[in-house]
């Protein structure tokens, strides 16, 4: 007989309350996690969408890529030894639109590659977010440090860096704006273990993301909230089941006296926990996916099914641990003391 089910049927209100709390906490967790992911794309979509590989900057730049200047011999040597390696530079700057309004962008230039957009001198490819702000293909843009103009050739999706839309420009134009002939970074895709190059320091994609100052701060605080919520939900389970178990000490004692196995009592508790969590998570996944599709365009929200499923599994695990810890009392109950206690 399924006692857990019978109990939940009889005490609907109690379990509905627990279920709604799990639902609310998990929904909040999903939404914050979606926001963390969205913000991380908004902050570093340019880097996040790259295949895994290794970044190199000079050692003396001390993790600040914009202080890195890789000399041309090293660059040539690396690009020849690794055929898909690419040298690139990223600098935050301004571009003026046709009505002379200044807009902040991240200028990006690279040697020939499929990983970054390529344009010829006097042209620019922009992140889609600028199109939404009214810039059109064919518009003429200018920069105060540059003698010429940039014709907008096109737009690309999800190319952001440090929350600024990326502007892909040619290497000549970049060198003119920033008065430099060296590139800051070399990226070698599909290089799993870092290879040593003298004077250069290597970073995996993830390590490189951490060198973007706002990135790690933002992600750390959001991820901390997510973990906090997960821990809270685990504690909720533990406390809730603890209270329910304490009320039932007498009943558990009697059931043990008439011969019910302790494992059966645990199974009863786990069933309740799993049923409540799965239903609450199901609703919460549906809710967060709905939010994902309805979230306004400007809102950096990006929640994949994969993340939700991963978080859900963690919720289940934490709920299981919480309920089990509180269930240790079940193991300790003596049939005898319950019988002598009187009516349950």
């Amino acid at each position, binding site marked *: *007989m399924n006692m857990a089910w*019978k109990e939940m049927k009889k*005490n609907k209100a109690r379990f509905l309350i627990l279920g709604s709390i799990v639902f609310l906490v998990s929904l909040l967790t999903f939404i914050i996690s979606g926001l963390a992911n969205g913000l991380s794309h908004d902050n570093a979509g340019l880097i996040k969408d790259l295949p895994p590989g290794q970044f190199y900057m000079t050692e003396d730049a001390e993790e600040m890529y914009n202080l890195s200047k890789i000399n041309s011999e090293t660059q040539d040597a690396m690009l020849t030894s690794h055929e898909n390696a690419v040298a690139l530079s990223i600098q935050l700057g301004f571009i003026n639109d046709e009505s002379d309004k200044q807009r902040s962008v991240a200028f990006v230039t690279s040697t020939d590659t499929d990983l970054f957009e390529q344009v010829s001198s006097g042209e620019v490819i922009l992140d889609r977010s600028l199109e939404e702000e009214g810039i059109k293909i064919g518009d003429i843009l200018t920069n105060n440090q540059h003698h010429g103009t940039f014709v907008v050739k096109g737009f690309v999706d999800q190319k952001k860096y440090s929350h600024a839309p990326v502007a892909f420009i040619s290497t000549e134009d970049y060198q003119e704006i920033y008065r430099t002939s060296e590139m800051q970074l070399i990226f070698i895709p599909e290089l799993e273990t870092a290879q040593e190059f003298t004077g250069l320091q290597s970073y995996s994609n993830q390590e490189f993301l951490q060198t973007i100052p706002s990135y790690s701060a933002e992600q750390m605080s959001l991820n901390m909230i997510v973990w906090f919520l997960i821990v809270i939900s685990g504690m909720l389970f533990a406390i809730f089941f603890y209270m329910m178990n304490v009320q039932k000490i007498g009943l558990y004692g009697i059931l043990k006296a*008439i*011969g019910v196995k302790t494992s059966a009592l645990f199974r009863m508790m786990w069933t309740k926990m799993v049923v409540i969590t799965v239903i609450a998570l199901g609703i919460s996944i549906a809710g967060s996916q709905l939010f994902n599709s309805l979230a306004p365009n400007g809102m950096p929200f990006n929640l994949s099914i994969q993340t939700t499923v991963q978080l859900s599994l963690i919720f289940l695990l934490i709920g299981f641990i919480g309920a089990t810890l509180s269930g240790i009392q079940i193991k300790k109950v003596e049939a005898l003391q319950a*019988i*002598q206690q*009187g*009516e349950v």
Partner: protein
Amino acid sequence: MELFAMEGISKTFINGELKEDVLKGINLSLNVGEVTALTGASGSGKSTLLTIAAGLQDATDGIIHFNGKNLTTMSSEQIRKIRASEFGFVFQFAHLVPFLTVEEQLLLMLDVAEIKLKKIEKKKEVNRILTLVGMDHRKSSYPSSLSGGEKQRVAIARAIIHKPKVLFADEPTASLDSKRSIDIMVLIRDITKNYNITTLMVTHDEEMLKYTDRVIRMVDGLVFAGSN
């Protein structure tokens, strides 16, 4: 050999410095088809003896023979199995499961005793026992809506539905008024006779002794034959 017998059972409780010899070497064998009443002053050790007999706590010394086996040397899992399938329990309070209907309480006991029957046969059996205790009309009620006497009838039904060999009852009538108490006593006696059960019952109510077959008095940690 008897179905159930205790030999030299002693029990000492140790509370810090204090040692209390509650049972001092009890020999008692129970007769099949009889209600054996255990009576005596409060604190004389009746409940202690009954719970030791039922395998709910260990004796300090002594042997318990049940059906040719020695309970005192068994593992707790072996004793649990015996409690589940060969013993029945009734206590002062009915201790029913609050979220199960009367019918479900009994179906649960059949599951616990691992009685292999088809669902429909289990339900038939439940009906039969409920009719026996006069509770068939409250089959789908929850315990909270039953009176004390009705709950106790259901508890008795739960204690015998799996056809136990031994029925243990500790003050089953203590929470009931005298008319209901007599009903319950008659019920226990009839069931003991009709199903050939061995019943050990604790009571301190002298009135109830009339409805038992044999009276054992506990004095100072020992048992003496008494009269009803």
